[in-house]
């Protein structure tokens, strides 16, 4: 190592943080090198002066009086909301950021789950729902006889632009004006008024048995699937 290398190590030597190998090298070098020795002495002198400077710092004579005069004009320290909240949470063991984050996540998850559940139910119940909670009602109709089935959509408010759809199995057929209709699915667009909206549907059973009639209403923010069980019996 040359003098420049040694001089880079002098600050660490003065801090007492030099590895033993380098410490031995520099301690052997300093007595024989006036330049490095002067450098080390100046550095140590600088540190000494700094300590002395620190101990010589004094405030001006009227410092305390001025500070007191300013302090009496200050309102008492206000406690921020976050600190007040933290002081309430601390006894519950929620004082650390990680614990608080976990608790907040859990609360948020529960809130979202509850909100989503209520909203999902709300779509069915608050806006549009069917009698008897949508449970399929049973109707019994004679075989090859035309029967009018009342599907009643009940809405708690007016809903426009609702797409209706009624599907029949192949064992049932729609009847319009006494004539059967070949289509098994009827679709139309209409609206629902607040309250009961009975929709009469004329159907005829071709074979005895139990069949499902699927009625559906779709609109803005609503989608209701309703099934009615028709039992066709021998006439």
């Amino acid at each position, binding site marked *: 190592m040359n003098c420049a290398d040694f001089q880079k190590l002098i600050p660490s*030597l003065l801090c007492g943080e030099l590895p033993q190998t380098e410490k031995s090298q520099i301690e052997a070098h300093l007595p024989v090198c006036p330049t490095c020795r002067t450098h080390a002495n100046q550095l140590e002198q600088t540190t000494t*002066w700094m300590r002395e400077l*620190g101990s*010589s710092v004094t405030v001006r004579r009227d410092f305390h009086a001025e*500070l007191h005069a300013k*302090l009496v004009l200050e309102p008492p*320290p206000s406690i*921020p909301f976050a600190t007040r909240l933290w002081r309430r949470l601390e006894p519950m063991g929620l004082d650390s950021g990680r614990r608080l984050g976990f608790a907040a996540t859990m609360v948020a998850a529960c809130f979202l789950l509850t909100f989503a559940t209520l909203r999902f139910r709300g779509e069915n119940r608050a806006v549009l729902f069917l009698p008897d909670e949508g449970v399929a009602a049973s109707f019994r109709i004679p075989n090859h006889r035309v029967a009018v089935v009342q599907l009643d959509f009940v809405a708690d408010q007016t809903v426009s632009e609702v797409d209706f759809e009624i599907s029949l199995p192949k064992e049932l057929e729609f009847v319009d004006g006494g004539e059967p209709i070949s289509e098994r699915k009827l679709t139309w667009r209409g609206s629902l008024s607040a309250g009961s909206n009975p929709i009469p549907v004329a159907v005829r059973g071709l074979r005895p048995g139990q069949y499902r009639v699927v009625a559906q209403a779709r609109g803005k923010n609503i989608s209701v699937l309703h099934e009615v069980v028709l039992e066709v019996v021998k006439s």
Partner: protein
Amino acid sequence: MQALLRFPSRDRPKSDQPSSPPVLDLPPTEDFVATLIQQAQHGDLIAFERLMACYQTKILGYARAFVSDAEQANDVAQDAMLRIYRSLGGFRFQSSPKTWMFRIVRNIVLDYAKSRRSKERKREQSIDHTPDSEMSACSEGNPEAQVLANERKEQLWQALSQVPESFRSVLLFCDLQGMSYDEVAAILNIPVGTVKSRLNRGREFLREVLLKQGAFSNSQTVEGKKT
């Protein structure tokens, strides 16, 4: 400690007369400081002034290294103390009170130094230095006169003002105020290793500035080295 319990409530001391907090020679204990802060958080000014009395020279010393004259340094130190008082309500003892206070002090001092620099650029005039001799005249009997000549002190403050801020803060906290590496690392929010390297570089920088000023020409060199 009993004397601190004189103002346990939120009530302010009725007297408007300034208190004369004792200047403590020994560093205050953590418990002592915590008690003072708790009382000050409830508006006890006496407790707060006692707290500041423990740290006033350290706060002033830090400010002095960034402010060109001693009078302004005192003003800045008072501003920093007022800011500490206003922020007391938010302190939750999650960090060391000393660390928390000196973070505030550092922010205030650096803000002041920054605004002052911009004003100086606008005015384009030299700073009127107020020598520390005026200060020492106010503190008669203080050991500073025995330790350093006023000329040397002024020379040191001026040399410090030329050290880059990142080195200067570490230099002030470690060498001027005798804080530990851990405390400085917490205040500056940097690793301890960075504190050490900045301290070494800051000392070296300061030595070079002092060398250019001729500060070592008349001083006695110290042959012994610490290990």
